């Protein structure tokens, strides 16, 4: 099966500084791919290249079969993206945000109607759908942003630290949504700083200073580093004390 995300020696330089250094990996359909790394490791930079927001300095990447450097417009049609400061319009209502993003993705009036009903039902938002987004709790905003990233039924969705700043229960609920989407065949590409979340991924990669230092399923990684948690794997790698 052709991978949904295919990255070959992808690099990004800002001046002399190499934020992403010749990384390579593949992600398959319906997979939940965890993209880990310490602050400043280059995760967001890599993700922005894969979403067509940044042009790579060198190397190649294909997302949903399209080259991110030359076919960014086609890539954009096939991906969802939830940025680190996930971006809903706070001064629009939930309903208006849904209609707006649905419209921008070119959905028909009927599709927007159906999907907004779907989102409202699923998250039990009926009572608050006409409230301004700024008045709803952070956890709801995150779920709404996720739902909007999926509104046009993309093949891949990029989630950049989607669960920052909320309690473990809310995070757990968010992961239920992720599983559900993955079950529907959506490929999930997610960065996180929570190592418990890393355990939920099908496969993870760990980036250090722009390089991918480890790649595999959580159990493979734990086994090869001979530790019993992803947290320990991460500590070893990110602190540079691992000798593998």
């Amino acid at each position, binding site marked *: 099966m052709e991978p949904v995300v295919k990255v070959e020696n992808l690099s990004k330089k800002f001046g002399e500084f190499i934020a992403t250094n010749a990384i390579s990996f593949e992600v398959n359909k319906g997979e939940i791919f965890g993209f880990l790394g310490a602050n400043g490791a280059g995760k967001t930079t890599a993700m922005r290249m894969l979403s067509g927001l940044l042009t790579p300095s060198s190397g190649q990447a294909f997302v949903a079969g399209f080259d991110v450097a030359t076919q960014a417009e086609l890539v954009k049609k096939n991906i969802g*993206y939830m940025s680190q400061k*996930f971006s809903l*319009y706070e001064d629009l209502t939930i309903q208006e945000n849904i209609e*707006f993003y649905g419209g921008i993705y070119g959905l028909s009036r009927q599709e927007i109607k159906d999907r907004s009903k779907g989102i409202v039902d699923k998250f039990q938002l009926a009572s608050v759908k006409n409230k301004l987004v700024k008045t709803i709790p952070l956890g709801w905003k995150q779920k709404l942003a996720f739902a909007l990233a999926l509104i046009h039924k993309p093949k891949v969705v990029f989630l950049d630290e989607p669960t920052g700043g909320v309690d473990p229960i809310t995070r757990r609920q968010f992961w239920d949504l992720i599983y559900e989407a993955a079950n529907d065949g959506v490929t999930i590409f997610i960065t996180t700083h929570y190592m418990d979340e890393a355990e939920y991924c099908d496969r993870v990669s760990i980036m250090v200073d722009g390089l991918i230092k480890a790649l595999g399923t959580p159990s493979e990684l734990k086994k090869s580093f001979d530790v019993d948690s992803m947290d320990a794997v991460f500590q070893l790698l990110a602190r540079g004390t691992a000798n593998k």
Partner: protein
Amino acid sequence: MRNIFILVRKEFLQIFRNRQLLPFMTVLPVIQVILLTFAANYEIKNLRLGIWDLDQSTSAQQLIHKFTGAKFFQEKALISNQKKADELLMKDEVDLVLVIPKDFEKAIHSSNNPAIQFQINALNNAKAGIVQNYASAITQDFLNEKRGNSTLLASPKIIPITNYWYNPTLNYKTIMLPGIVAEVMTLIIILICALNVVREREIGTIEQLNVTPLKKHEFILGKLIPFWVIGHFIFWAGIALGKIFFNIPMVGSLGLLELFLAIFLFVPLGIGLFISTAVETQQQALFTSFFFIILFILMCGLFTPVETMPDWAQYINQLNPLKYFVEVNRLILLKGSGLKEIYPFIAKMIIYGIGINLLAIWRFKKTN
């Protein structure tokens, strides 16, 4: 097209919900127009008039009457030679010496233009300009009356008003107001356009839109169109207020003024957009916008005459959109100029608008 419609709709939803922006766009202009119009009151009364009457005719007397009858001039001295006139002007004892030529009455009844001379005390530049305008207006009025009544001439010749506008009530407010409306509108448009785009970048929604298939030009049009509409609203509301409360003159075609406005607006919009691409934060956008706005206002000709600026300043001033608008306002509203006179201004605005917007779009594509 649909995308632009969706963006415009979204923008209006946000604008009407914005508790800071809405008063800024509605109440502020009204207050500013009224305050500035009163503050910038150049109306000057009791100007001191020196009279040098070489004709000593009935018509000359009538003209002098017309000057002193309007409460703006006060007879101060009767003069009989140039030396005296110079002395009074130099000592700042008169503001205007009205010289009525020898064959004044004859000239009126013939088709010749009488060579009336104004010798103006130019100690205060702005005041001198007003004196000149008042004096010309009164004389023109006098001549029109005279010739209109005249039975001597079969078809009274209409003398074209060339250099000076005519403000029948001689009320300076009415001249200032349209310019101030244009100035306030330009200020608001530059500011909200710059702030709005920077704000979307700060909160990250631009990035969110950048991962959608939305095109950059659609995004930009989605921004420009709402503010273009708002610019119209502010301008015409201001002009309507001026008409209602100050009865500002509207000699020329409002349709023509609208045509100019519709094109003009792309200039402040482009400037706002350009500023938004050059700064990082809303605060920087605010300060940068104000820097330009203050320059534009000071040099637009509303508060100091453009003609008296040094050459280099006039050169720079070619880039001042307000200068053009103030001039067009005067030409259309006060003088009644038509498309032929306004056309060069429209052409300049089209070039300026295209230029600044292309620059802004180019920068925008690089930075966002």
